[in-house]
């Protein structure tokens, strides 16, 4: 490792990788990769989806053997680790998906399978001793819950602390946290970052994998960036910053980082107008909203504020309890998604894998599904027409896949989302509703999806984008509507865009507007 310029290593590295290479059929997952981890060091590991992070984790966990290269743990060189060697040398993982028994209590989870037993043939668990063993572990992770609390009653961050305590219980010397914060709210994230600092203070090394770069900025001593299976660069403590990490991750500078670009034309007439809509989640809160052509309307608000429910009613999935909808000035009665689709109102749903695409079908079959009669002659599917549409969309949207016959289940999140967009783009949308369109998608694909949304708006489509990502809402929208507990609490025009204003509206307070005649209702 030549590019590090931290203070002279006083201690030998706990772990070092040298020229590690791993290939899968057709793919080089990791190539000439070298890094080292010193005791008590926090390493931020970043990279886009598919950059090789999971392969690296599998190698460290002993799940796969590298094709070549050396792994040195505690001064002993190996060609590859076994699972036993990995655990035995004190490498512990905390995965994004937690492996806890929710029906058992904290202590039982931490020492599962290794419970202290009482003397006697019945092998009864020695509860008192178990508690004594768990207490110091919980203290080390700064837990604010007791050893006999059922795991089901804990918050996500607390459950992660249990996982870390479990790692400590096997005398871990390196804890690898794989996207631990991706599902945590802000306050909980803080606690977790404190735990990482605590581990560091004890001399335990940490590899911290996260897509949230500002968290990496805060805790990492060094950042290792992976790109296309190779080491894209290493940033030392004082060189860690957001832009540099992004540049290394995608190999170029994103000029319009996380922005869709400015609108090139003024918003047009009202395309879809919803008047006093009531949803079954908030039956006593009518919502009125207007979507204009050639405009991206951001819809912000806290989780549970009724945004998704509004989208589902507009798309005909949920029943509209009251209110009226007009499309191009004409009354429209949408009672099913099929009605919405027939009228050019499309939804890119929040849950891509469950409702956005059919994972078992091919790209081509997914794209043609909503418009199958147009790809058929006398009710028989024309595979030729279907493939032609799919090829065109694959090219237009830059869907990365071996062919349009590839199962969508094998694609990355970003490419899956492009397939969802492709099926609607193939059909001339009038109104496009996107619910959390970039959730779980890496930065490169994100920018492309923003570009597509802007292109849609430029083509005269009314775009409604629901998003919980503040930067995204402010960077992409032309106007921002904010919901609070089932009601529209206000609409912000461009000059009033700020995180503060969106947050104020989201909690039901008045925003600080430049002009008195703001859009607050």
């Amino acid at each position, binding site marked *: 490792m030549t590019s590090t310029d931290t203070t002279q290593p006083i201690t030998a590295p706990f772990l070092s990788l040298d020229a590690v290479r791993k290939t899968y059929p057709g793919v080089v997952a990791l190539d000439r990769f070298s890094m080292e981890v010193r005791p008590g060091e926090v390493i931020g590991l970043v990279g886009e989806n598919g950059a090789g992070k999971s392969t690296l984790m599998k190698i460290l966990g002993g799940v796969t053997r590298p094709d070549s290269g050396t792994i040195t743990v505690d001064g002993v060189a190996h060609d590859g680790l076994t699972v036993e060697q990995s655990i035995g040398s004190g490498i512990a993982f905390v995965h994004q998906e937690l492996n806890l028994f929710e029906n058992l209590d904290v202590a039982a989870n931490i020492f599962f399978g290794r419970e202290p037993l009482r003397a006697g043939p019945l092998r009864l668990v020695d509860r008192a001793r178990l508690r004594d063993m768990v207490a110091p572990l919980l203290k080390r992770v700064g837990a604010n819950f007791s050893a006999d609390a059922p795991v089901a009653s804990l918050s996500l961050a607390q459950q992660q602390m249990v996982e870390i305590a479990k790692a400590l219980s096997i005398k871990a010397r390196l804890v690898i946290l794989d996207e631990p914060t991706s599902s945590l709210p802000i306050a909980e994230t803080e606690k977790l970052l404190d735990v990482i600092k605590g581990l560091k203070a004890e001399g335990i090394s940490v590899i911290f994998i996260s897509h949230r770069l500002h968290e990496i900025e805060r805790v990492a001593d060094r950042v290792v960036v992976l790109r296309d299976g190779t080491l894209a660069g290493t940033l030392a403590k004082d060189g860690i910053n957001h832009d540099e990490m992004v540049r290394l991750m995608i190999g170029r500078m994103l000029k319009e980082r996380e922005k869709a670009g400015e609108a090139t034309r003024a918003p047009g007439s009202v395309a879809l107008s919803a008047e006093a809509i009531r949803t079954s989640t908030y039956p006593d809160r009518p919502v009125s909203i207007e979507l204009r052509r050639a405009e991206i309307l951001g819809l912000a608000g806290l989780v549970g504020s009724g945004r998704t429910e509004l989208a589902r009613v507009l798309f005909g*999935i949920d029943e509209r309890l009251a209110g009226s909808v007009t499309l191009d000035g004409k009354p429209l009665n949408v009672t099913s*998604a099929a009605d919405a689709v027939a009228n050019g109102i499309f939804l890119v749903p929040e849950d891509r894998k469950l409702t956005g695409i059919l994972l078992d*079908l091919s790209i081509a079959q997914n794209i043609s*599904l909503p418009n199958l009669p147009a790809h058929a002659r006398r009710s*028989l599917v024309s595979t030729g027409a279907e493939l032609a549409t799919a090829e065109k969309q694959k090219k237009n949207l830059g869907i990365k896949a071996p062919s349009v016959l590839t199962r969508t289940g094998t694609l990355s999140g970003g490419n899956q989302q492009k397939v969802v967009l492709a099926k609607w783009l193939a059909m001339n949308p009038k109104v496009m509703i996107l619910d959390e369109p970039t959730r779980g998608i890496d930065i490169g694909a994100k920018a492309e999806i923003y570009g597509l949304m802007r292109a849609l708006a430029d083509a005269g489509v009314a775009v409604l984008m629901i998003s919980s990502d503040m930067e995204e809402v402010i960077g992409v929208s032309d106007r921002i509507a904010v919901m609070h507990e089932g009601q529209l609490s206000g609409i912000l025009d461009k000059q009033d865009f700020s995180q503060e204003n969106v947050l104020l509206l989201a909690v039901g307070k008045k925003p600080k507007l430049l002009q008195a005649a703001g859009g607050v209702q």
Partner: protein
Amino acid sequence: MSKKDLGLLILILVVGAVVTAINPRFLSAINLANTSNLVALFGILSIGQAFVIITGGIELSVGSLIALLGTLFIDFIAVRELDWPLAFVVIIMLGAVIGFVHGWLITRLKLQPFVVTLCGLLIYRGVARFYTADGTAGFAFGQNFPTLEFLTAGRSYGLPNSFIALIVIAIVMWVVLHRSVFGRYLYAIGKNEEAAKYSGIRTGRVIIAAYVICGVLTALSAIYFAMYTRSISPASHGQFYELYAIAAAVLGGFSLRGGEGSLFGVVLGTVLLQELQNLVNLLGIPSSLNFAVMGGVILIGVLVDQQWGVFRARRRMIEATRRNVAGAPAE
């Protein structure tokens, strides 16, 4: 033809060869004609079931429906002396209506297919028994319907006409299931109904249509069964036939979760089931063991299929690793 179907076909041929070796009468013209007639009757029924299973549903009432519709058909032409083509149309329509009601209860009122059709199973059996006052429906002495009898129980070029009907139905339904827009919708709904709905498919209508198809094909096979037995005691006629149909679909590669299976597979599944029945008779196995043999073979078949899948996945992995190792030095 998929590998699964091919495997099933080979199994059918192997079992056939073994049975022939023990008892050459297996290949006699009379035995083949009899067996192919039964394959046709159960095949039509099983194809209907397959359309429901592909949506992730199930239709348990078909056995009772065969009793009820068969009883009604014989009653219409033998007792009420309706023209048989009219009776035929009425029975088919009844099958369609019953299928529609099932589909409607399942999609609109959100009842579970198992529950709806289980109630159907009980209701239709009860109605059939009540209709004949627990007696037997049959033809009077000397009653003849030459055209109908030719179409249902007759033969052309040595083939039972029922078997020819099965071939025609199988081809038509193959096109519907594997080539039509409707067939694609069926697979999509079976794989993920929610996602299909979000793609703008009117999933309710498609599912109802599947139950209507099942109802119509069940009614058709009810007429064939009625003309085959020529006398129906509704208490037992058609009993367990729903399970034959489900077993044929499962053997043919259909998943009860929906979204998987081929038409050729369900026909082959029926052939295998009938071959097993035939085997029990020809090899002198006590007929009381009939169900046990069938259950055993289905269990083994499903097990082998599943283990084969596991084996192939493992082999693929080993091969991939070997390629890797071979390719690594060429860096």
